[in-house]
């Protein structure tokens, strides 16, 4: 079984963000970066599949400047087998352009499964997996919360708003992974040592046409400062009055 996982390097979301002078990117000074959470789950699932089979190969792919090789190396230290860096120095906000480059790399790779996170936690578009599937003409299942792959068939579960559905498709397929299915493992020291010797190929990204343009980034309007109205159950009558008369939600 050949598996590919597309991973994105994103800033640590616990940081406080500042907008860079350009107005179209964040100020990266002082930020920490790591693999997008959901991509970590996707990498974990792919590695688990090869471990369970005792065979197969996981290729991790990431697009961006040279520093994304650090993120790829982390995936190798988790247990992925080889990495492909699609080099692209300038930031690209257009998901379809990025997906076109990923699809170009994946197309002739002979992959049985292509996995991605349900979304990148920075851009929150939730579209790259679907774009890649469409560009490759492959079956696609998004936001998988349970997964079983056997005998050439994918069986998956997806959580919906107030419901869930069970989905099946044949291999090869493109899947995106939701939370709750697996925790990304921490690389072991042995894994980190082994990763240093694993192949890392770097080549220019073949971006697609740009369909939209990022105009600006802004910080959202701040909420008014919080207010404590009282202590313990004695504050309940005042809360109910405020919900009725001020907030008008009761």
């Amino acid at each position, binding site marked *: 079984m050949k598996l590919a996982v597309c991973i994105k390097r994103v800033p640590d*979301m616990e940081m406080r963000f500042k907008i860079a002078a350009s107005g179209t990117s964040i100020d990266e000074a002082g930020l920490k970066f790591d693999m997008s959470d959901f991509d970590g789950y996707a990498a974990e699932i792919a590695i688990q599949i090869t471990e369970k089979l005792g065979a197969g190969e996981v290729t991790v792919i990431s697009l961006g400047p040279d520093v994304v090789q650090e993120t790829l190396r982390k995936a190798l230290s988790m247990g992925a087998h080889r990495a492909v860096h699609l080099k692209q120095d300038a930031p690209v906000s257009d998901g379809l352009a990025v997906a076109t480059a990923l699809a170009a790399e994946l197309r002739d790779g002979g992959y049985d499964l292509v996995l991605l996170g349900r979304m990148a936690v920075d851009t929150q578009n939730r579209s790259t997996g679907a*774009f890649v599937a469409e560009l490759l003409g492959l*079956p696609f299942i998004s936001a998988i919360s349970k997964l079983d792959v056997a005998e050439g068939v994918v069986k998956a579960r*997806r959580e*919906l708003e107030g419901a869930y559905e*069970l989905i099946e498709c044949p291999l090869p397929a493109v899947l995106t992974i939701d939370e709750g299915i697996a925790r990304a493992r921490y690389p072991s020291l042995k894994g980190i040592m082994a990763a240093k010797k694993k192949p890392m190929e770097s080549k220019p990204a073949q971006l697609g046409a740009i369909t939209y343009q990022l105009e600006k980034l802004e910080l959202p309007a701040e909420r008014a400062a919080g207010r404590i*109205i009282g202590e313990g159950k004695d504050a*309940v009558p005042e809360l109910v009055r405020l919900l009725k008369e001020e907030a008008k*939600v009761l």
Partner: protein
Amino acid sequence: MPNILAFSETRLGEMRRAGLETVTAARQVADATGGQVHAVLIGAPGVAQFAARLAAHGADVVLVLEHDAFANYNPEAIVATLAQRLGSGYRAAFFAASAQGHDLVARVAARMKLAYASDVTEFKFAGDSVTVKHPGFTNKIVQTFQLKATPAIISLRAGAVLPVENPKAGTVEAIASAIDPTTARVKVTLTEKAAGGKLDLGEAPVIIAGGRGLKEAANFKLVEDLAAAFGNAAVGATRAVTDDGWRPHSDQIGQTGRLVSPDLYVACGISGAIQHLAGMRTSKTIVAINKDKEAPIFKVADYGIVGDVMEVLPVLTEAVKQAKAGG
């Protein structure tokens, strides 16, 4: 004037609120720029019954596709049918940024090489340009995009546009599936409502959420009781709580869970970790009940009560019941 398309999501033979939101958004654009609203309704035989509701919300034309193979969501046939339809020339198309929307809309856009803005909270049509806003970075940054291609494909965040009635003719036209819907490679074999048939977090006007301050899973009963007292409330949870298995992962509100903005959010025993705030800070009114008066949740709470959630909740539940009863 080119027309505006709106895809109306249904599930298990029911119209989704999101399906009315897309029609309302399309109506707003059509009223401003001209053109008609074409609403698309796809489902098992019987789904055409919803055409009247789409007409009431501003659909000039309702394009209906009924087939048994659409009893469950049938992504490949829907994508093919919508892509074919968009090829006939539209100014824009509105979808819901729902689980189903996120599964299908990007495929439609990629097939047609169209600009797709996902999870949009605001949009502006002016001349040839379409400008949209979309929150990112766990809702800490608002991204503004300009879409270059026509039609512009937009998925709307739940609640970004609320359903408004604006009756139009809603002439029903039957359309055909662009591919044989029985031969799709991706098959949904079962769709089932979550246990209890509760209100969904994305649609409930009120959310009562619980955190570690509840001490153990059984105490979530207090949260459920308050939700029941409101009657229009859904129950949510923090990641700490879903990770511990007190509540299902689908209840998780926060950076890696659901992003919600209800009219009222009641945080019970939630300290307000930054990942949790990311998922709920856009709520209109926030109430926090927490023992620790230094908890970050109080920085965003319109109304905070410092106290033991186990002691405050039963009293609040009774008071809400009385208020609802007119007392």
